[in-house]
């Protein structure tokens, strides 16, 4: 597999997006899904909580110059709940974020993150709180996310992260896009299909 697809170490400043159950409609309101490419999605990230009806920026971490150019995002519990729209992780990635560290993630959202090569990793509520505080105190300091050691390092702290092994290994090996792997089993797919009664009309 291509070495450029291997993703095991991320180092950069982070933006804290506090709050639980931040749903995909909040991450990207549905009206922006009318575009037929993902190209502009980064511009719409958290749009309706970042800007008022006149388009004037309000108080939101993404509008705060202190967190400008962040490449990591720190979030709360059940982040990305709601719709299956890949536009949500696409918006985050195209905004410039390379990995998300949070308390927990909704199932479909986490799968979409994996599919586009952006790890979404979990840490305990205590450690996430610690991380938020560190970022507020040191917004320009870098944070290291290491998938090999399953840790996040910041200041004097090293915290453990949780990421299912099936997800971690594909980032380490560069096989997070499963397409080629799935395709390589084409014959077996055909064989599986043949054994299913509905595929032959229950004849």
């Amino acid at each position, binding site marked *: 597999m291509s070495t450029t697809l291997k993703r095991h170490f991320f180092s950069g400043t982070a933006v804290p997006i506090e709050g639980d159950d931040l749903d995909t409609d909040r991450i990207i309101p549905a009206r922006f899904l009318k575009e037929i490419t993902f190209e502009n999605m980064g511009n719409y990230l958290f749009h309706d909580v970042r800007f008022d009806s006149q388009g004037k920026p309000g108080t939101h971490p993404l509008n705060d110059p202190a967190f400008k150019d962040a490449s990591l995002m720190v979030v709360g519990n*059940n982040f990305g709940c709601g719709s299956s729209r890949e536009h949500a992780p696409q918006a985050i990635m195209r905004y410039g974020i390379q990995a998300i560290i949070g308390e927990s993630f909704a199932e*479909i959202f986490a799968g979409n993150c994996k599919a586009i090569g952006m790890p979404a990793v979990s840490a305990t509520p205590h450690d996430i709180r610690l991380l938020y505080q560190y970022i507020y105190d040191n917004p320009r300091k870098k944070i290291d996310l290491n998938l090999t050691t399953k840790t996040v390092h910041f200041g004097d702290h090293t915290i453990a992260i949780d990421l299912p092994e099936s997800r971690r290994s594909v980032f380490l090996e560069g096989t997070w896009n499963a397409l080629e*792997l799935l395709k390589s*089993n084409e014959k077996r797919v055909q064989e599986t299909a043949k054994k299913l009664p509905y595929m032959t009309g229950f004849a």
Partner: protein
Amino acid sequence: MSKNTLYDKVWDSHKVTTLPNGQDQLFIGLHLIHEVTTPQAFASLKERGARMAFPHRTFATIDHIIPTLSQQRPFQDNQAELMTEALENNVKQFGIPFFDTSTNKQGIVHVIGPELGLTQPGMTIACGDSHTSTHGAFGSLAFGIGTTEVGQVLETQSLALNRLKVRRIQFNGLLAPGTYAKDVILKIIHILGVKGGIGFAYEFGGDVFDAMSMEERMTVCNMSIEGGARIGYINPDDITFNYLKDKEYAPKGEAFKVAVKHWKSLASGLDARYDDGLTLHTQDLQPMVTWGVNPGQSVGVTQMLPELDSFSKEDKKTAEEAYAYMKFNPGMSLVGHPIDVVFIGSCTNSRLSDLREAATVMAKGKVAPHVKAIVVPGSQQIKKQAEAEGLADIFKAAGAEWREAGCSMCLAMNPDKLIGDQLCASTSNRNFMGRQGSPTGRTLLMSPAMAAFAAIQGEIGDVREVIG
């Protein structure tokens, strides 16, 4: 680990192989697509000159972006027109059956799949839409996927997936008049929470689900994802088989008999083992109404809104935000609270039985003068049936708008939207901030009967006053 459940049987029969990372490659028996989450996937296929593996196992419709007032082409919204054209070109190029408005079979993807008999027990079903869990009502494993995964299904008819745990949700008792499938699922989400289902498939069983029609079962499974469970299902039984008999894509004659025998064998065994379980009873079940910004924040209609101290530390902050956004206060009652808009529709509650329940209530009055009420059938076929049996006339006579089929005001991708901080009594599935198209719009989720009652009262009320 679960054993001998329907989930295990269907998973095992569709498993292609175990992948190096430990995930299973699963064959996808039915792939449903719509305009919003597919253009990027098709673009990638075309860019690489790739082909579809099983073009006859993908079916398309248009639902999210289609206007419900006039569906005349070109659509007034240029983006909607372009997105529709993209789908039209893609289905044409790849030879995918497309239920557009000219077929009279167009509708919300989760309404037409079952209606056409495409959805069948024992299938794996994927669609780029989280409410794909709806199809679990038939005893299939149905789940939402992202656009990259849509591309993988188009090209390989398979996906790399982690096996979920299975939680059995047993609901016993009878549904009292005025309480419906919507109340059942809102109650379950209230109890287990919006993240309680992460990592689980929900198997719904017991008296309540046994007695339900397929349409009611679809309402329940539809909202599994709102409780965090990507999959929700009900074991197939005679109600399932009777529903499917004579449906367009269902097996016919001898094949149907063979199919029924096979479908019966898929139900969870008496010796099935589950990873988790929960038993509930209908005795205290009231018509449910959400008051907050996630579907777990709900009360029985006669209950007072919860005090902040009643929440755990982690839920308290979300509740505070919800109260501020909704402009409600702890301790208040929603009964008697005026509403601005009523939306009856969506993949949760736009089927014929939903419209009948709503019409029964709406026939008892007129839509309050300050209320805008829209009724949006889930499909062209439902629209036709509802008109034939006089439901449309009841809605129109009451002063509600009777629309064309589509997702409408559930998600604000079409002209049907809230304005400002309007408060909407809605039969849809999400009360997220801004969900219905205005960044400050407010949504109260409830059953079709409750929404219809809100329309004629002009305020939230307890529909049991007029039902039963």
